[in-house]
């Protein structure tokens, strides 16, 4: 496997995570009601505590009507705890939790647009694509599109290797998506508990 390009500032293009001293990369999984305006409320919590968001993904979750946010950031554990508590405090946020790298299965996807003439000229290009387990999904006389799905470091390794050969025209990486390795589904448990409370409440008044 090609060596990862660590000195990002030297090439000016590399988009590797810059790890800050004493900080850990945390993945926050946040579940909310599908109400407009929540994303900006959630990101505002990070801004206020001066924490940079490294990647962000928002989509519908497996539970109908519930949206899932996957956010990564570098911070210490106290901050991760504080951020998730302050996010969970938002009325329409259902749950917010933070995880370390070993507590979640992680995937990211990426696309690299490379020059076809240069690829044909330099046999290293297709070799790098192959050893990274990436796929060429489209080729025409001008450019080829390479797709690579995996963990962040593998994707950056592919990009950096190709970039060193000077063939990269465009590069894009998605936000991280992940699922927890826990055997307990905390969201489902929480929602079930809440439904019991709702039923109790119904005896006294109309609930939302």
């Amino acid at each position, binding site marked *: 496997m090609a060596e990862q390009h660590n000195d990002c500032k030297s090439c000016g293009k590399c988009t590797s995570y810059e790890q800050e001293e004493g900080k850990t990369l945390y993945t926050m999984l946040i579940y909310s009601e599908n109400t407009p305006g929540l994303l900006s409320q959630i990101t505002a919590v990070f801004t206020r505590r001066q924490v940079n968001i490294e990647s962000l993904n928002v989509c519908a979750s497996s539970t109908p009507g519930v949206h899932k946010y996957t956010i990564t950031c570098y911070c210490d554990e106290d901050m991760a705890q*504080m951020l998730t*508590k302050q996010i969970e405090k938002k009325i329409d946020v*259902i749950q917010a939790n933070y995880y370390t790298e070993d507590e979640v299965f992680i995937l990211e996807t990426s696309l690299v647009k490379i020059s076809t003439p240069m690829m044909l000229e330099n046999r290293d290009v297709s070799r790098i694509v192959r050893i990274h387990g990436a796929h060429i999904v489209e080729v025409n006389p001008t450019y080829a599109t390479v797709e690579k799905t995996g963990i962040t470091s593998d994707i950056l390794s592919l990009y950096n290797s190709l970039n060193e050969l000077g063939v990269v025209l465009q590069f894009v990486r998605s936000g991280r998506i992940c699922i927890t390795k826990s055997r307990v589904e905390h969201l489902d448990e929480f929602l079930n508990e809440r439904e019991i409370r*709702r039923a109790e409440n119904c005896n006294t008044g*109309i609930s939302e």
Partner: protein
Amino acid sequence: MKEQISGAEALMRSLLHEGVDILFGYPGGAIMPVYDALYDYRKELNHILVRHEQGAVHAAQGYARVSGKVGCAIVTSGPGATNTITGIADAMIDSTPMVVICGQVGTAMLGTDAFQEVDVVGITQPISKWSYQIRRAEDIAWAVSRAFYIARSGRPGPVVLDFAKNAQTEIFEYESKKVDFIRSYEPVPKMEQTAVEKAAKMINDSVTPFVLVGQGVELGDAREELRALLEKAQIPAGCTMLGLSALPSDHPLNMGMLGMHGNLGPNVMTNQCDLLIAVGMRFDDRVTGNLKTYAKQAKIIHFDIDPSEINKNVKVDLAVLGNCKETLAAVTELVDKTTHQHWIDSFKPYEEKEFNKVINKALNPTEGPLLMGEVVRKVSEAANNEAVLVTDVGQNQLFGCRYFKFSKGRSVVTSGGCGTMGFGLPAAIGATFGAPERTVCMFCGDGGLQMTIQELGTIMEQQAPVKIILLNNNYLGNVRQWQAMFFNHRYSFTPMTNPDYELIAKAYGIPVQTVVNREELDEAVRKMLATPGPYLLQCAVLEEDNVLPMTPPGANVDEMLLEVNS
């Protein structure tokens, strides 16, 4: 029961459904349909016309703070809404239940920079508990009920409803709604028995426990429960500024106020106790001073309703989540009846030291100009220590909170977390409506009074019985004090040329008296309290007086200055 009514009328019905009977507001273009509907509901909904929208929110806050009910303000779009921002932020940091209803342009014009259009939800989201735009009449009953439920439940706070004009005029089938459950929102965390047992054990094991009383005790209506715990285990306590009336001032276990300008004993003992028990308070920097040295020797228990307050500023050994009315009672059952006489007595030398060096001088001067402290104590005692204290922000607030005495709950209305100058006068108006049977004494300086002085118009119109005590020193006194202490006496823009406040009061038909000499003070205070309705008592106080003692910003909590170093 279903019938066809307008959105504006639906708002009236929804407010009545939530038990609202008073609104503080100011009309304008985008809220006119609502004001038109209000015209038919004048009997049920007492609308107090303020003179500036900032006055409406602060009045709603004052009303909420003394009554425990949700204060409600109603304003128009654009500038009407932006004028409420300070009050919303203030209510958020001081956990005051309030619903602010703003007009908004019609949905068809949203985002087009229409006349008096402002992104109110975008602006208020970070400073409110919930902010929502009502775009369709069908949402009104739900949104209003949800707003009041959120504002009053759990840790209270402000909610903003941005009410689009088309939703106000739409005719639809109205049906009342009651929201008392939101699945993503747990207002009161479940009390954990293990935490209660641990807390009781920590208290029983402690030799020198100390309780920090915050506004949470008032908000949770837990004054009795707090007293029961303190008295059973004989634990001394200090109160935060907003928690001052949660425990009677003369209670033998009340050691005084915490914080930067609090009392010496409770601040010093914070760094000497072996167990610190914080109840419904949030370890504000004005209370803790330097966090690196704050109560490091002690184990800490934090009772709070808001999980995000736990370990925010101060790392604690145990959190007891829940409403303190419930958790305090549960812990009290398990604590041993005991005495800590030796520990309680150890506060005395500090009390005496502070009395001799600071308090006696502030309360019993024999010569020189009037002092703020003596005026505050005179008013408090003349009102039998039963009045509601409303303050503005600055030296008037600090002297007010230091020397006013409290015997009843919900008696302090002051802008704590936000420190909003101009808060006092409108908040006092609200307080007179929230506690009509009580005397409301509002202390302010010449700076803060002028920030919302237009509300004298509201006082005049309503004949709101606000006893205004203007502590006039011709300075922005608190900033001047800091300039004297930390900026080499460079009085950069703190001296102030004042208008003739007697003429101003007379213009509004408000009885007024100015006191310059000490001998006149007693009689003037007596006259003010004996005069029905509003009153302005102007006291010409010592120009360069300082609030002491003081923990300089960033200093250790037990390093209070008892005098200003020259």
